[in-house]
């Protein structure tokens, strides 16, 4: 199922002090070989039965080495009205903020960003993370070493969740405006009714 509907946000931010991890994410999110498409086309022409392979969802990935750098990117994206849907945040990033601090800073800037905290070593217990981040559906934990499909599915699901949340909110907003319009109409109708037929008694209104 291709996600091409309006409001879909594929922007992902990776914050990790390790360049090798950046490369790992890059490899995972990288599109398939460019040579695959012409091959598929010529194969289809030759054998007639070839179907185009299902392309992976395409993500737009940015990288930051420190929490502060990541927060700056989030702030700019927000200002450009091109926000990140989610961020993979490493737990240990000496010498700067740790993953939790970074997460809190990001949420201050943009509370909609879905966070995945990556940790290689359980130097923070779940309880200690909970204490600082609170019970929330906005963050997940991904233990290193992670699997390619884990990352892909997490990214896929959370970007989808971002969109759904956004949709829900816009739906809510839409309903709210609808409700307001409707109540305004009702109020108008009521006053009109009251103005045109003042003689109508309470008995008529009552069921």
């Amino acid at each position: 199922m291709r996600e091409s509907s309006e409001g879909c946000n594929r922007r992902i931010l990776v914050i990790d002090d390790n360049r090798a991890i950046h490369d790992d994410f890059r490899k995972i999110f990288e599109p398939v070989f460019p040579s695959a498409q012409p091959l598929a086309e010529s194969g289809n022409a030759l054998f007639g039965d070839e179907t185009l392979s299902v392309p992976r969802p395409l993500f737009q990935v940015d990288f930051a080495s420190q929490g502060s750098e990541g927060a700056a990117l989030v702030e700019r994206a927000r200002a450009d009205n091109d926000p990140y849907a989610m961020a993979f945040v490493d737990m240990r990033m000496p010498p700067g903020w740790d993953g939790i601090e970074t997460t809190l800073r990001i949420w201050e800037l943009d509370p909609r960003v879905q966070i995945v905290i990556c940790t290689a070593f359980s130097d923070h217990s779940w309880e200690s993370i909970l204490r600082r981040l609170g019970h929330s559906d906005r963050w997940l934990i991904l233990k290193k070493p992670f699997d390619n499909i884990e990352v892909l599915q997490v990214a896929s699901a959370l970007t989808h969740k971002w969109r759904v949340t956004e949709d829900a909110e816009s739906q809510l907003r839409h309903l709210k405006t609808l409700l307001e319009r409707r109540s305004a109409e009702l109020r108008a109708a009521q006053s009109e009714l009251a103005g045109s037929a003042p003689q109508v008694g309470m008995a008529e209104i009552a069921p």
Partner: protein
Amino acid sequence: MNGLRLLRDVPIQRKLTIISMLTSGLALLVAGLAFGAYEQVVSRGAMVERVSITASMVADNSSSALMFNDPASAAATIKSLGAEDSHIVGAAIYDEKGRIFAIYRRAGWAGNFEAPRVEPEGYRFGGGHLRLFHAISLAGEHAGTVYIQHDLTEMRARTWRYALIMLLVMAGASAAALLLATKLHTAISGPVSDLAQVVGTVTTQKNYAVRAAKQGNDELGSLIDGFNAMLSQIQIQDSALQEARDKLEKRVAERTQELQQEVTEHTQAQAELERVHRQLVDSSRQAGMAEIATNVLHNVGNVLNSVNVSAILASELAQKSKADGLGRVVELMREHAHDLGEFIASDPRGKHLPVHLGHLADHLKTEQAAIVKELDSLRSNIEHIKDIVAMQQSYAKVAGVHEIISVVDLLEDSLRMNTGALARHGVELVRDFEGQPLVNMDKHKVLQILVNLVRNAKYACSESGLPDRRVTLSVRSANGRARIVVADNGVGIPPENLTRIFNHGFTTRVDGHGFGLHSGALAARELGGTLSVHSDGVGRGASFSLELPLYSAETAHA
């Protein structure tokens, strides 16, 4: 004066004796001499008087004889002299004209009496005799002269007697004086020698408590009083001094004790400080180890992540490989084996065959490259993990087992551990070993250092980009130390880095961790050796020297 000088060193007792003897002797002598002289004068006077009386008697008796010119009666008169006085050796009577009228010679006198020429009345002593002339007068007329010669033997004998008596008296007086002096000297010399003794006691024994006994109120008494007063003064001062000294000694002792206590406290404080420091070092080391462990786990986790990603990618690539597409093409070609040319040339499907084959070849090539890339990444990542784990082991190892090992064997081991990397980077190894020096130490520590050095040399070579990559390993032993040198012709070290290269966390490599050389230097020091570096600068290679104490049977038994 000589006598006085002689007396100077004589003891006072004798001095006093000599002085008293001399004074009493001199007094006696003077008295004796005066008495003698007086006696002489008196006895002479008496003799002259007696002889004068005799002469006047003779003159009276002989005046008639003279008048009557009767020499015989005159002679008889003077002859009686002999009976009267035996000391009259001769006598003569002269007439008024001075002629000898009568003469008398004492019989038995040894001398020869000759009447001298007449002289006027008078007497004289001389020649051991008294010679006296007495005028004879008759009725106021000079009638003649009497001459008497009297010897002095009697007087002389008396003089001798007197001298003897005087000598005896002097001897007796001297003896008495000596006795007296001996008895009396104690009055003066006694106190003085007492004083001297007291002074001696004070001088030799430093005893200021003794006092000289006072025996009188004379000058000696005041001297002794003064001396005693001086002694009292000295004693007071001495006791004050003693007290001051005691006080001082006490203070010194107290201060010494205080100082000792201070020193003890200081030592204790120092020991405490050392203990705290050691504790701090221990705890910081533990904390450091915990930090390292956390770091290591984090690093391993990160690298494992890359390993995982690479492995999955590689396996995906292999699984999804379009290599099977080649099979289908081959099958199609086999189907059209009889009219392959026409199939390619004119069949609407067949016309795509060459293009498809081209695409397939391109794709497979890309696939292969990607798989190789991932496998390479896998291999380097696994090596990285090995490094991290080895490092962790080297830190975790606290006490190792000492064994006697060959330095050359260790070097070969370290080369073996790096074989893959060395071969991959095309590094040529040059071995320059002399002898088989042995060391007695923890094998793993030495190995850790050597593996590090070899790996660093390999990195230096591979980073240089030179076609000629060489690592020279040499082993020497001298002065009880084994010297292992790992030299490369790689990138070299800028001078400013030579001092920092052993610092913790110092690295020039992107993926370096910066404690290989640091822990190497520490380990070398722990092993009683040194790790040093030399480089002529950037691009001129570097050499690391590890010096270790050689094993010897003597030191092993020591």
